[in-house]
């Protein structure tokens, strides 16, 4: 028991590791600030394309979406970071992370937005168009807001996944929170820094997880 506390809850080591871990946290938040808006916009774009009347265009997009949802995000990241240099494209960890996550997240967000858009009754489109609004205006001002409200729990849930996904950036040596914590671990031979990082992740994500539960139960009733 004593050994467990020593190994996992060594506050002395946590205190020493804290500055490093907090620097990592800043990087984690930076990644989030880049990746989440990119993913959301990409998702809206994907969903909009799914409404397009151009069948080949729709089908290719659909194929790409399935492709990027089938590949594990880590694999995609490794391919972008380690594979592209072989054809002369050398990306920074942040760029690789951004691209890989953009491709992955746009697909997931795209599916969510698409389901949301389909849940808006066609009468809404008809009403808006009949007052002279263009297709784009209808989409942006009438349909999308309602779609978002319908799938809000899924959107929040997916965003939580994206935040968790940032921990994968550690695999390509990006100094985000997990990477920093793991470095502290290897320097001290003690897992407490990782417990510290875990606690910070929980502090950020736990309230969000509770929120999603509440949203889901509200929608279900």
């Amino acid at each position: 028991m004593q050994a467990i506390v020593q190994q996992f809850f060594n506050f002395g080591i946590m205190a020493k590791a804290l500055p490093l871990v907090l620097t990592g946290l800043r990087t984690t938040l930076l990644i989030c600030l880049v990746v989440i808006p990119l993913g959301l916009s990409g998702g809206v774009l994907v969903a909009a394309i799914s409404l397009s009347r151009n069948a080949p265009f729709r089908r290719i997009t659909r194929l790409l979406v399935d492709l990027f949802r089938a590949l594990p995000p880590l694999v995609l990241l490794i391919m972008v970071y380690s594979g592209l240099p072989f054809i002369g494209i050398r990306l920074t960890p942040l760029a690789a992370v951004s691209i890989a996550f953009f491709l992955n997240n746009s697909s997931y967000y795209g599916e969510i937005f698409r389901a949301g858009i389909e849940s808006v009754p066609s009468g809404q489109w008809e009403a808006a168009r009949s007052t002279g609004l263009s297709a784009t205006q209808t989409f942006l001002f009438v349909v999308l807001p309602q779609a978002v409200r319908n799938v809000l729990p899924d959107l929040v849930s997916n965003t939580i996944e994206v935040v968790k996904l940032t921990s994968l950036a550690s695999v390509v040596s990006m100094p985000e929170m997990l990477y920093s914590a793991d470095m502290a671990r290897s320097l001290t031979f003690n897992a407490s820094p990782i417990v510290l990082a875990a606690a910070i992740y929980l502090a950020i994500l736990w309230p969000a997880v509770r929120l999603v539960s509440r949203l889901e139960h509200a929608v279900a009733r």
Partner: protein
Amino acid sequence: MERFVDTFFKPSILASTWPAIAKGMLVTIEIAVLVVITGLALGLALAVLRTLRNRLLDFVIIIFIDFFRAIPPLVAVLLIYFGLPNVGIKIPSFAVLWLVLSLVLAAFAEEIFWAGILSVRRGQWEAARSTGLGAGQTLAFVVLPQAIRLAVPPLTNRTIAIIKNTALGTVIGVPEIINNATTAVSFLGNATPLMMGAIAYLILFAPIVALGSFIERRFAWRR
């Protein structure tokens, strides 16, 4: 163009490396199957425990599921993999990966099953109890069959997402697909194994996703 093929699809490497990739696929499948079985079983068991409406038990269960839904799986993997040996518990990396992913799946599955149980109308409970069926019998024969069918769509999606995390095994040395692929890449100085790895994942997951859709269509049930 030729350079592209040579970089990503070099025939000689395709021939020499595919056994390693295939072995990786087997490992990935093994872990995935085990995770699905233990994760779903545990998730269902926890949801059933919540029907007891015991405050303390509910509290413990909710803490557990919130924890594993909030924590990035990689963090949990590293924590257990590096931490436990230092307190004298040696678990092989395969087992660490299986353990973490099972617990994560159980946490998400519990919420989904619980939501399913809650959606079964109260009238079903009342009708069954009014014919003299006990609480356990009502749960087993009337409520759970309905709850599980309601849970199928979100569950298939979530399960597929979680078993993709088997790729995390590469970080702790589990010989799954991407691990074997990157090893081969650094050994051979060519990106072909990487492409093979990606294709291996697609080969693996396309049928899984199709199976998921099939299960959804066959067993799911929208009221």
